[in-house]
């Protein structure tokens, strides 16, 4: 490490980068020049950066003459639309966003709804699907859910009833 706090040539390379852009403070400028006086590779790096910068003198291209009338016309048209035009754009944007939100809501609801039907169809026990089709409010949805759950519970109780299970039937057969 040098006495100026720099840790090696790679840190001076960054200073050289800023130096060619005239973005170095006077203190850093002095530190860099002290280093360059005793470091040939860094001095060479500075020359390379300068040469690169000097090489990049691009051809300036004149805009085509037809461009300005075209832009002016577009600017005038835009200006004549004025505040009302801008406000209209905002309203249209608002409607577009609302439409996208509505579509998303429908898509998510449909996914949930048909996913729910798929779950019920996978279950062999009978369920009144018309209850689901009549859903139009959250209360309807809750009621339909309670209804189908109640039906399922009743069915489950019925199928577990010992009088109708295989075990009870075999006991009866033995008795006979």
């Amino acid at each position: 490490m040098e006495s100026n706090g720099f840790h090696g040539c790679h840190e001076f390379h960054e200073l050289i980068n800023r130096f060619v852009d005239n973005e170095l403070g006077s203190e850093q400028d002095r530190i860099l020049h002290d280093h360059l006086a005793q470091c040939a590779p860094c001095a060479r790096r500075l020359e390379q950066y300068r040469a690169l910068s000097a090489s990049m003198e691009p051809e300036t291209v004149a805009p085509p003459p037809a461009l300005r009338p075209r832009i002016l016309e577009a600017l005038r048209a835009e200006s004549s639309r004025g505040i009302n035009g801008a406000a209209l754009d905002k309203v249209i944007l608002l409607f577009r966003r609302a439409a996208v939100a509505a579509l998303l809501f429908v898509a998510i609801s449909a996914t949930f709804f048909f996913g729910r039907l798929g779950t019920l169809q996978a279950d062999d026990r009978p369920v009144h699907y018309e209850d689901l089709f009549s859903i139009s409010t959250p209360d309807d949805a809750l009621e339909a859910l309670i209804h189908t759950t109640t039906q399922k519970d009743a069915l489950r109780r019925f199928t577990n009833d010992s009088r109708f299970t295989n075990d009870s039937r075999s006991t009866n057969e033995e008795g006979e």
Partner: protein
Amino acid sequence: MEDTRLVEGLKTGDDEAFRELLDRYEAKIFNTVLRIVKDRSHAEDVVQEVFLKTLRNIGSFNFQAGLYTWIYRIAVNAALDNLKKTQRMKPLSIHGNEEQTFEIPSDVDDPSRAPERAEMARILTGAIDELSDKYRTILILREFEGLSYEEISQTLECSKGTVESRLFRARERLRKKMEKYL
């Protein structure tokens, strides 16, 4: 016309203000955009879009940045957006349609070096084109437009440290490719 008057004129739809705006910035913006998008036809479309966006957003301009920097920001963003669109459409081309070359300062006293200079210009153009958009854009703003680190950071909405490190990396990449010519 001062910037404040120009901005007021643009807000009220003053035709003279439009002309003043174009007098000041049309050529500069056209060249910057052309360097980024590398296609003359696309550059024309982007420049028109830049001035329309300038007019649409002039109401929100509050002089926090200079008018010049503000318009440059619109231009660079519009050019980069255009570049992304065209790159998606033409994934095989990295050089675009416009073969814009950079002039190597001529050693007019030494015509024997002309072929070497032409070769260097060709390689430099290719090396700059091969830089990623973020390095190429920052190099264009610094080397060709002469913007300071502060102006670049305002234009690209990034820190001065980012400007400095990107410029350093861009130059290092160019230096390695151009080493034998430097």
